[in-house]
């Protein structure tokens, strides 16, 4: 019944928001299931709509990303197709609703993600030594550096994000300090092969369950 406890405050909170802005339909109550429409069952990510997994990811990082989307620091470049879809969703969130969502996400069971890309992991390992400085030798992330865990994330999502950083679709907004740092670091990857290889190596790191 843990889930029920989380949903009820959200229903109430969003209902209040609706009363302010809309003539709410009597028969329709709000629910909090927007996350799983895109991010898949129990937030484990969905390749079909290119939405990353949330389950098992660090709450401090998810919080920062929701806040970045809300503030227009992420998901504003027109070529960041999935980011642009996420941004208006986050724009509606209050601090309280972000906290509730993080609680909800924390209740989801982590299951290892499927490996979908095949590159040269040994070549990627060399590149990864640069990444490890911030993201940790095991890809476990480092909150002190503001660097999220990479191990355990959907590999296709990591590919898209590295491409976006490289192309300037992400990490290009003034005020997105961490994103700008990452955009600079992504320049150490020369091409798509490098990206595939480094993420193939990250796939070998796994993630404790």
């Amino acid at each position, binding site marked *: *019944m843990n*889930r*029920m406890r*989380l*949903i*009820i405050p959200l229903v109430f909170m969003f209902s209040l928001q609706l009363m302010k802005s*809309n*003539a*709410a*339909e*009597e*028969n*329709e109550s709000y*629910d909090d*299931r*927007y996350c*799983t*429409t*895109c*991010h*898949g*069952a*129990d937030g*484990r*990510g*969905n*390749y*079909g*709509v290119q*939405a990353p997994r949330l389950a098992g990811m660090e709450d401090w990082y998810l919080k920062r990303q929701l806040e970045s989307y809300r503030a227009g620091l992420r998901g504003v470049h*027109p070529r960041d*197709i999935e980011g*642009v*879809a*996420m*941004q*208006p*969703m*986050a*724009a*509606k969130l209050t601090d309280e609703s972000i906290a509730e969502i993080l609680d909800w996400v924390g209740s989801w069971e982590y299951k290892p993600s499927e490996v979908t890309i095949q590159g040269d992991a040994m070549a990627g390992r060399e590149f990864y030594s640069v990444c490890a400085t911030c993201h940790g030798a095991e890809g476990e992330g480092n909150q002190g550096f503001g660097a999220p865990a990479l191990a355990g994330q959907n590999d296709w999502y990591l590919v898209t994000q590295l491409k976006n950083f490289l192309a300037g679709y992400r990490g290009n907004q003034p005020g997105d300090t961490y994103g700008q740092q990452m955009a600079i670091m992504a320049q150490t990857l020369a091409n798509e092969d490098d990206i595939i290889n480094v993420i193939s190596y990250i796939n070998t790191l796994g993630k404790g369950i």
Partner: protein
Amino acid sequence: MAGFVTRREFLNLVGAVGGTSAALRAGSALGLLPVTKTAKALDLFALGTNSKKVAILGGGLSGLTVAYELGKRGYECTILEASHRCGGRVFTVRNGDLIDEIGNRHYCEFDDDPHMYFNGGAARIPSFHNNLLAYCKELDVELEVFVGENNNAYFQDDAFLGGKPVRIKDYKTNVRGFLAEMLAKSMSEQEMNEPFTELEAENLLSIIHSFGDLRGGGEYTGSSRSGYKTGGYTTHGVQKDIIEFRDLLKSRLGGRTMTASEGEQGPPLFQAKDGMDNIIAGFLRVVGQEVKYRAMVSAINVTNNGVEITYDQDGVRHSLNVDYCFSCIPTHLITGLDHNFPADYVKAMKYVRRGDAYKAAFQAKERFWEKEDIYGGITRMNNRSSSIWYPSGGIHKNKGVILAAYNFQGGLYHTNMTQEERIEGHIKDGEKVHSNYRSLVEKPVTIAWHRMNHMLGCAARWNRSFSGWTAEEQLMFDTLQKPVNGRHYVIGDQITVHAAWMESAIQSAHWAMEDLDKRVRAELA
């Protein structure tokens, strides 16, 4: 080819790409219209004292069709619908209805009146979509004519006549006149006479003359078909000025307008009276008790003798064990569920792209189009909003609902805007046709299918090339059409080669049920 092209050069150009016979072959090979056949009653085995449980994932039209037909044969059906409503993309919005776009949730504020509705998804029924029409009859869903073609509606393009809107009849009549004149002139040439008998040539000339309303000498000098400038009843009509051929060729909208009312978009078309979702209501009158709303599937596990479904409803996780499962959940959302599907099945689901169709509508404070002799039909614009649809029903009432924009493809342009930006765009586009548009419209709704909760897409796109399906695409389609273990079927217009039509959703359901029927008959024989 910069500079001028004479008519002769133009005809030579036509000849260079294959001429008439090539054009004829192209026309018949387009294959845009599927073969029509009379709807037949499904010959499905009735279970009698046998018991079979069926889970239907998604209360879209295909899912409801399965529930309806299998229910008749004694199957015990449960429909799990993730949202608050059935119908999927058969979606009519009226006063108070929720438009559950992720990030842009809004409510319809149209006046509460039966004719004040908007079909945000399916909106047209061709007269040869037999299975759909048969269900409308069987389920007592009242139909009315949908006016799609209206030559009094407008044609507007900034590149044409300084952006001044003209009536579609003005555009079409002039284009036909000039095209016919070119053909008629070329008919007198010796080489064109060769392939025809005298009678054939005579008839062809007659067709060309009447196609373009030509004068005796094969000249196009204008036509009363587009109406008169003045008079015509108690005084003699004064012919309108011709629009110069070169001006007609300034617009890229020409081809689309000349063919807009052909094939499946040609008359006669129908719609369900007072909203297309009355078709859904018709099914729900029979199977409504079987629907669980806000029941969101999280896992599908196919076993040797059934399917185990896991779903969340009211904050509680439930399980449902059935003999068979029919899923009209969009493939791009199935990929996000826990499942044990075979790799090639998943590969096919991951391949299908989701459509991004977009529609918008306004309530009009008055029926201003009727004052311009427009009753139903579609204005064509060469701008981002693309079309204005005038309602077929509610004639001469005080208000009406008009479609303000429709992008069947390229809908992400509007989807990526804020609600305010979308609306402003549609008003600016509409003002080019109806100068007082801004003051005449209110209470907008926008339907961005790419972001609609629990759907996240419009019509599925299987082929990535305009030239057709690759062998690999066909293989993936065939894989996904077949059931997993004979237990799990993907249904919906997404698993047809003709997505975006209600008839397709129904035929996919029929295909799946006929496949199931063979298995059930074999098992119970």
